[in-house]
């Protein structure tokens, strides 16, 4: 089974600090990591390969340093990876991103299933997976917790929506987004780390995938940021002093005043 797993390198949430005066990120000290949601997709992909054979190819769009994320994915069980990196991709919103991913997947050629994390911690849109399915013209199933392949080649998945869990069947090719917590992502292995170190990560540029200029970057992105503001919190601002017992007394009074 040819499995493609899309991942994104994001700033680790707990290292992101923000300058509220300037309204900008503090770049210093930011650690990059694989989007935590994508780790569940990667684990699902590796498990599929373990059950049914085949290959897991990781696909990631990002700056050159996103290669690190692909190497980490290999150390966690992927067979190989491809980095989509080109200055012309910068500024792409989800519509342009799904186009670029689609062009890369077409270049890869044959595949049975594309797995994506449900969303990213930085963009938080959950749009690229379904958008990619639409671009590829194939069936999409989101919020999936488990995947198996039937003898007749169809896929059977468990999908969890607000009201409960559906067991569904569908033909490949499929784009599936994996629910957070669907599995327990493995840590890297030593052999994986060694493989990752040596692995060659091809870089696909705009030319390599034959992407059209008006479909990528800012030109291919219909949305733009009009303005930004730092959210403000209003109201009382009081630090409760005293011994712990006095502080708890004050808390109980606040509870009473709040009517709880």
């Amino acid at each position: 089974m040819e499995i493609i797993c899309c991942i994104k390198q994001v700033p680790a949430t707990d290292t992101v600090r923000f300058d509220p005066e300037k309204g900008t990120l503090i770049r210093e000290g930011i650690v990059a990591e694989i989007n935590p949601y994508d780790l569940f997709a990667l684990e699902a992909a590796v498990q599929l390969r373990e059950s049914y054979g085949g290959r897991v190819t990781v696909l990631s769009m990002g700056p050159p340093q996103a290669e690190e994320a692909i190497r980490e994915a290999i150390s966690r069980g992927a067979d190989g990876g491809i980095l989509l990196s080109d200055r012309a991709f910068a500024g792409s919103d989800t519509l342009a991103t799904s186009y670029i991913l689609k062009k890369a997947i077409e270049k890869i050629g044959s595949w049975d299933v594309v797995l994506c994390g449900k969303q990213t911690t930085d963009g938080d849109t959950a749009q690229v997976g379904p958008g990619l399915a639409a671009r590829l013209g194939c069936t999409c199933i989101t919020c999936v917790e488990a995947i198996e392949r039937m003898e007749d080649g169809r896929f059977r998945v468990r999908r969890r929506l607000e009201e409960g869990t559906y067991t569904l069947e569908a033909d490949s090719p499929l784009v599936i987004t994996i629910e957070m917590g669907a599995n327990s992502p493995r840590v890297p292995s030593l052999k994986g780390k060694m493989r990752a170190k040596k692995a060659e990560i091809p870089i696909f540029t705009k030319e390599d995938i034959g992407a059209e200029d008006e479909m990528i970057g800012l030109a291919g992105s219909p949305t733009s940021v009009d303005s930004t503001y730092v959210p403000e919190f209003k109201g009382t601002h009081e630090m409760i002093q005293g011994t712990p017992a006095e502080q708890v007394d004050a808390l109980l009074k606040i509870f009473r005043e709040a009517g709880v």
Partner: protein
Amino acid sequence: MGSGIWVIGEIEGYGLHPVTQELLSKSRSLREELGEELSCLLVGHDVARFKEEPFRYGADRVILVEDSSLEPFSETQFGKIIAELAREKGPTIILSGATERAKAFMPIAQTILETGLTANCMDLAIDPQTKVLLQTRPAYGGNLMATIVCRERRPQMATVRAGVFKAEQLSEWKVGPVEEVELKDELRQNPLTQVAFEPKSDDEAIPDYKGADVVVVAGRGVAEKGLIEKLKVIAQALGGVLGATRPVTDMGLLPRHAQIGQTGQVVSPTLYLGFGVSGAAPHTIGIQGSKVIVAVNKDPEAPIFKLANYGIVGDAKEIIDLLVDRLRDRTGRGEQNV
């Protein structure tokens, strides 16, 4: 009159999903500013019986697609239908709640329509000059609110978080036109076959975080089993729910659904009570709607104190122990021996 604002109607239980009610209510003001018609789309199997509901919340028109092929839910099919209808009728704006279903079908429709989509909006407005939809959503993990626009392409599409707008029924309303649409054969293709469905069982029922009056939150500073148990007692004694920040749910100390914040539950309680919560933006964006925020943390520099109404700098464990005792006293000793 332009070609309209569409709200995608979703059904929950025996009526319109609350977020649909909220969106229709909010869209009444957008309609005034744009001077366009407000339509509610009802697409699905066995949805016709709800066709009058949207009018209570201010819809001018209902577009109804009732078809048995729409079960089970397939985002692929749903997205294609929305895109097809939009191509045909040319709405200016398509809105939907940021439900699991909508987060799946909206991007499919968006991509087919080659237009913009803004996810998880927390405010919507019309730019008075350009008449463009101003879609405000958290960025950089909620450190910043960004107003997104889709200037050139149409429709402008957005999903909106539940609970950010108020649902208001009209005191006077009447049933307006219901436009029934027959699906073309190719749109009746549902790629999914349902094999089984298990409704969410009672014991895994997720507490109502959104509607909770009191939300107690465990942060990294109290990420220990014993303390979590005590916080459960506190939450129960206050008639509230216990949530957590991401590190705590990542450690498996509380279920994933207990994660409060941008990527988890968005809450708006009367009282928010955070223990050992540092106040990183991804968390705080989800608690903005709280009336009173109380935070206990060892670190006086913790960002949570910048937005807390009341803060205690100290050992959260000590405060938790004292609080458990005092709340037991309050509710009567013995009753709360959980």
